[in-house]
Structure formats: C-alpha cells, structure tokens
C-alpha cells in the first residue's frame, strides 16, 4: 500500500520536472560566434545617479587567510576614507560594501557574484590567494565587471576584467634571481608550499637557472599549513647550496625558519630569499629567526618617498602606531586610487569606458610612480631586494634602477618561451 502511494507521488513530480525543464530552456550554444555575441548578457545595474557610488571590498575576514587579508582590508578602508575626504570620485562619495571571502575559493566566487549582481558595485577590490583570484575571474568575466587584485602572483594571466596591482613574476622573482646571480650565487635550493604560486614560480626559476648556469640542488614542497620541516631543512643543509629560494606561505614559515636556525644555518652561511614574508609576517615568524634574511618585493615601509611617508603616517594615525605597512597593503591602497584616476579619465563609471581609459593612467604611489599597462592590465613596479633589520622592518639593499614593465607571460625572455604555452 505505502509503496503505491509514493509511486503515484512520483508521477506529478516527473510531470512538473518536465514542464519546468521545457519552459526554462534558454539559449543553446550552436557555434562559438553566436556564443560570443551574447557574452555580456548581464547588463550593469550600477547606480550613479545619486551623490554616492558603491564599491565592493572582498577579503577573507575569517579563516586561515584572515590575518593577512585583514591588513589589506584596512589599507583599502584608509584609501576610501582619503578619497571621500578629498571629495570622492567625480564628486561622488564612495559607499563601501564589504564581503567576507572566508579563505575559501567557492565563497569568494559566491560573494563576488553578490557584490556585482545584488549590490551593483562599480568595482570590486580584494582577493589574496591565487585560488581566490582564479575562482572570481569567471564571475567578473561573465558579468563584465571590474576586480582590482592587490597581491604578487604567479603570472601567466591577463583578463580584461582584472587589474593586477601586485607584482607579476618579472617584477619580483626574476629580479630576485638577477640579484642572487649578481652576488655570485651558483647553486640554489627551492622550498615552497604545495599550491599554484610556488609550483609556477619554481618552474620559472628552473628555466632561469638552466639558462644562466645556476644549479638547482633541490625542489621541495610542504602541504599548506605544514609545520614539520626537519626532513626538508636537513636536505637543504646537506645540499650546501649558496642560497635558498623560499615560496612557503603563512604558518609554515615559522616552523621552517625555526628549524633552519636550529641546524646551524644562518643568513650569513646560507641566505634565504623569501617572497611571501613582509613586514606584517615578521613578528609572527619571530624576528630572532629571520633577522638578516632577504626578501623580494616592490615596496617596504622604510622607503623614502614623500607619498610613502604620508601613507605610513596616515595608516598609523588611523590604526595605531604599532601597525606596519607591507607590499600587498600598499598595492591595495594604490589600486583604489588607480581606479579613481581611470574613472576620472574616462569621465564615466561604466566598465568598458574605464577599461578603455586604463592604459597609461599613472599614480604617485608610496612605492613610486606606477603606470597602468593597457595591454595586460598590470602596472609598472620597481623591484627591490630587502634585508630584515633588527626592528623587524625591511631595509632596501638593492633596487631596480627604473620601474619594470609588467610581462605576465614572460614573452620578452627567451629562456621562458616554453613556460607560457
């Protein structure tokens, strides 16, 4: 008896299913040409009629990335405040809507969709990990919206819907290798966390080393968040490499540097070049563990430019004298001002007009003057090698003579030809 009830219940359900499926069918892709013509089906809902305009900030305010991304959120907030105090963008005050990416790529994609479709923001700022950017990229492309991504990354990407204000590989990793080569480094050891950025960075380093007669004595990966490094550190010590190239992320650095020190390795005997340790991370890793080690970035708090002095002072005034500023924070701060300059050049908040106006836009950033490359939506940056000093800040020990043009696909490097295929 009971069985028959459910069977009957299934019939109307099946009918309903078919009805909705048939009624719901939308456009089908018959050939790529027609698919491309319907590309921007989601028309913009940005409201610019009032005295304010909405912008979205998307950062991980919870989860493992919260410590890093909260600092970016803070410097974005500072930039918005400064812009509003100076009269806003084209006379409109910025109204910030903040969303939490919760350190999960899926959450980033979902929240980015909300900022674009539900909140109708004119532009979105944020993201940190490669996976969060990769997750948001299709959302911004499908809705034809703008994302400003403020963190150094692994390159090999250029979307017309993303502006990359952090360094690409030829503005951070290659200069670091150039510096090492200049110092007479003949052999290096690669240590990294197991995800996209270190793997891609190490691929580039391998190709560079091969072309420049440098020897790579080992390439080791630890799972993200791993704190067990005795095996890797012993391998590093036994390799007797001239230097270590470190692409570890987050907590792993604490364990790595502690064990590095405990086996008797020092900055003098075997220097470590890190690309993910900035001012913000030094206290966490422990100053006694990393003092004297090298870093590769485009901005340090100690930079002596008028714009940087103003930025650091304003940041400390707003968030406390004990706070520090770092490269991603500076890139985020810069990104909001770059968007302002693009909008004002375009004379419009519309995405296509902003994109068209982007090329050549400049801003007097704390790191120096930056210029937007209209071809690949990256910006020029000045690579700098730094040394961690006794105060936990980073002193510039080498700086590129001039700003480096962004080359995300490393097209101008002969030895990198096979990488970007």
């Amino acid at each position: 008896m009971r069985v028959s009830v459910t069977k009957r219940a299934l019939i109307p359900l099946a009918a309903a299913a078919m009805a909705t499926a048939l009624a719901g069918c939308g456009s089908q892709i018959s050939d790529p040409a027609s698919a491309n013509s319907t590309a921007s089906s989601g028309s913009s809902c940005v409201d610019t009629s009032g005295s304010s305009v909405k912008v979205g900030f998307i950062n991980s305010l919870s989860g493992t990335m919260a410590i890093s991304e909260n600092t970016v959120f803070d410097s974005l907030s500072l930039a918005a405040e400064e812009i509003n105090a100076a009269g806003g963008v084209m006379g409109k005050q910025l109204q910030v809507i903040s969303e939490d990416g919760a350190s999960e790529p899926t959450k980033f994609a979902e929240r980015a969709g909300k900022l674009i479709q539900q909140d109708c923001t004119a532009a979105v700022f944020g993201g940190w990990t490669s996976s969060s950017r990769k997750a948001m990229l299709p959302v911004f492309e499908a809705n034809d919206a703008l994302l400003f991504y403020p963190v150094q990354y692994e390159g090999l990407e250029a979307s017309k819907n993303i502006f990359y204000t952090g360094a690409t590989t030829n503005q951070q990793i290659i200069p670091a290798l150039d510096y090492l080569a200049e110092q007479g480094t003949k052999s290096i050891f690669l240590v990294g966390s197991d995800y996209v950025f270190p793997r891609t960075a190490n691929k580039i380093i391998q190709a560079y080393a091969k072309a420049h007669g440098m020897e790579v004595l080992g390439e080791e990966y630890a799972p993200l968040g791993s704190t067990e490094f005795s095996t890797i550190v012993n391998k590093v010590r036994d390799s007797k490499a001239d230097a270590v190239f470190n692409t570890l992320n987050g907590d792993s650095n604490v364990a790595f540097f502690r064990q590095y020190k405990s086996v008797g390795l020092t900055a003098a005997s075997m220097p470590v070049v890190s690309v993910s340790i900035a001012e913000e991370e030094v206290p966490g890793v422990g100053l006694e563990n990393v003092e004297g080690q090298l870093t590769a970035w485009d901005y340090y708090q100690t930079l002596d430019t008028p714009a940087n002095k103003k930025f650091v002072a304003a940041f400390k005034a707003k968030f406390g004298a004990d706070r520090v500023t770092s490269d991603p924070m500076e890139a985020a701060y810069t990104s909001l001002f770059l968007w302002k300059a693009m909008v004002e050049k375009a004379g419009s908040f519309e995405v296509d007009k902003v994109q068209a106006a982007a090329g050549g836009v400049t801003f007097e950033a704390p790191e120096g003057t930056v210029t937007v490359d209209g071809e690949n939506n990256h910006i020029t940056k000045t690579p700098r090698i730094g040394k961690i000093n006794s105060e936990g800040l980073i002193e510039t020990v080498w700086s590129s003579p001039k700003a480096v043009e962004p080359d995300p696909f490393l097209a101008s490097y002969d030895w990198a030809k096979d990488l970007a295929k």
Partner: protein
Amino acid sequence: MSTFLRSRWGVLAGFAVGAVLLLVAAPAALSVFNLALLGKFICFAIVAVGIGLAWGRGGMLTLGQGVFFGLGAYIMAMHLKLADASLFGGSGVPDFMSLYGSGEVPGWWEPFRSPVVTLLAVVLVPGLVALVLGLAVFKRRVKGAYFAILSQALAAAFAVFLIGQQATTGGSNGLSGFRSFFGFDLKDPSNKLMLYSIAAVVLLLALAAARQLMHSRFGELLVAVRDQEERVRFLGYDPATIKTVTYVIAAVMAGIAGALFVPIVGIISPADVGVIPSIAFLIGVAIGGRATLLGPVLGALSVAIAQTSLASTFPSFWVYFQGLLFVLVIGFMPGGLASLPRLVSRLKQRNTEKRSTAPASAPQVPASAAPTTATTATTVPEEASR
C-alpha cells in the same frame, strides 16, 4: 493534523506544497543571484537526505560524504571543462592544463568527453566506491567511531590528493570558469532557472525515494540494524548488506548533488570536498533532526541560509555560533529541531496531567497519545550517535 500528514493524501499534499514552493514560489520571489544561491543550498540538502538515511536511520556516522560529493562534482566539472575546450578553444584542451600541465589531456580524462559516460559516471563512480568501501568495512563489522574516523580520513586524503595533482585536477584552484552546460549557455538567466529547477526536482525525487525506503520493509530492517545489530543477525538477515546498500544510496545522492553543484555554483575546489565541508554537511542534518524525513533537508537549508546571511555581517562569529548550536542540539535535543514538537507535546501532556489532578478541570481526551506512538520509529537512540 498529524495523522493527516501521515496518510496517503497527506504525503501527496506535502509533496505538492514542496513542489509549489520550490518550483513556482521561489523563482517568482527571488532574484537571479538569490535563486542560484538557493540552488546551491538545495545541493547541500540533497546530500543531507542521504546522510539522514545513513546516519539517522542506519546509525552510520558518515563523516566523509565530501568524497562522494567531490567525485560527482569533479566528474561533471571535467566534462564541462572538456566540452568548453572543444566548443570555444577548438583545441580540446582545458586552459589550466596548458598553463600548469603538459598541455595534453591525460587519458583518464578522455572518457568524460562523452555526456552519456559523464552522466552515468556521476551515479556509478560514487556508488561503486561506496560499495567497495561499504563491503570492506561492514563485512568486517567495523562500526561506530571506527567507521566515522575511517570515512573522515578518506575525505582528508581525497582533498590532499586533489591539491597535489595541479596539472590534472587544477590543484587548490579547483576547476572553474564553465561556460556551457550540455550545449546550453550558462550565462543565460533562463538556463540558470532550468538548472535550479533540475536541482529542486532532484531534491523532491530524493525525498520521495527516501520516504519510500523509510516506510518499506528494508527501512524497518535498517532501523533494526541501527538499534540492535546482533538481533537482526540472529534473525537471519545480513546487517552488512543492509548497511552497504544504504551507504551506497547516500553516496549516490551526494554524487548527484555534487554534479548539480558544479554548473550552479561555477566552481569546485578541494576546499569544498575535504574534512570541513564533510562535517558541515552533518551539522545541518543533526540540527534539523537526523532520523526524520524532512529534518535533514530543512536543517541543511536553514543552516546554509543562516550562514550566508549572518557570515557577511559577523565574519568570525558564525563559526562559534554554528559550534554552539551543534553542541546544544547534540547535548539537549539529540533528535534535532524535528523533535521539538514532540518535546512540546510531552511538556503539554505533563502540564495536562498536573491540571487533570486538579478537581475543577474537565475530563480530557488523550488526543496526543496517537501521534506519540506513531513517532516512535523516528526516535533516535542515544547509542547511535556515539
């Protein structure tokens, strides 16, 4: 009212109301964005129906449903990636493979070029994995905490495996950026509505299947295995077979949910299939009431909705709130929120008894006696959760 809900017409009416709410009211009331969000929650609810069967009725604490969800999702994602690559790129090689891999499609991807193979695999692969695992585990009479730990370890291993295979699974980035779904343009709002409707209908079908199972002879046996496995064995049934079948059904539901999740949400990454999401699946089920038909679904839906609306306002607060809710429910209401009406009626009964001892009150008909006996099958034994 209660007896009506349990009758033939009551069940039909219930399904009709559910269908109207999901298929007519929701699309009319919600924006495109919120409808897609509801579609995502419905995917979680489909997983919850399976967990309700395996855990609530069968006593198997499945801490690793993320594996089956992930299998279904990755199979669908692989097909969508391959289909997009031939539709738009022409080369037939998904973009991330040329960036991070050798630029060639690995052999084990190739079968998923075919839509038919993909649809079959979405059901069969999670089902087969669960079958092999279930037979291996339950035939050896592994149960309780050991089974829970084993299933959780599997979820952890699966996520680590996916992260390590950067060139073939997209690593921690996962697979994303799908543009078409079996030839339909994923950007078109009417196709989004179609996907949502498919998910909603699958949820209703899963519920119908779960109800049929719960009220069948097999369902009675399953509850018997949960409560007294040894006695069922003495009666001549094989508890291992009963458990394995239920585990397979739950796995298939999770696999289908994963396959629907991919086109609706647009991304699948190891962060969606590991230990934490596997536990998250369970929380909604526990809060809603794991041994009932609707408890897991309503629990999963309300936890997901609450998370989305609360998490953006109080980012870190949600995790604590969810933990607190879980502790409270497990500690004080093991039957979940679904047992709330029963608790209330029991309290009422106690009050009535007190009052009826007072001489002035009118003689009361024990009307609440019928539902109390009718719901005994849904009571959760304390033992099953340990």
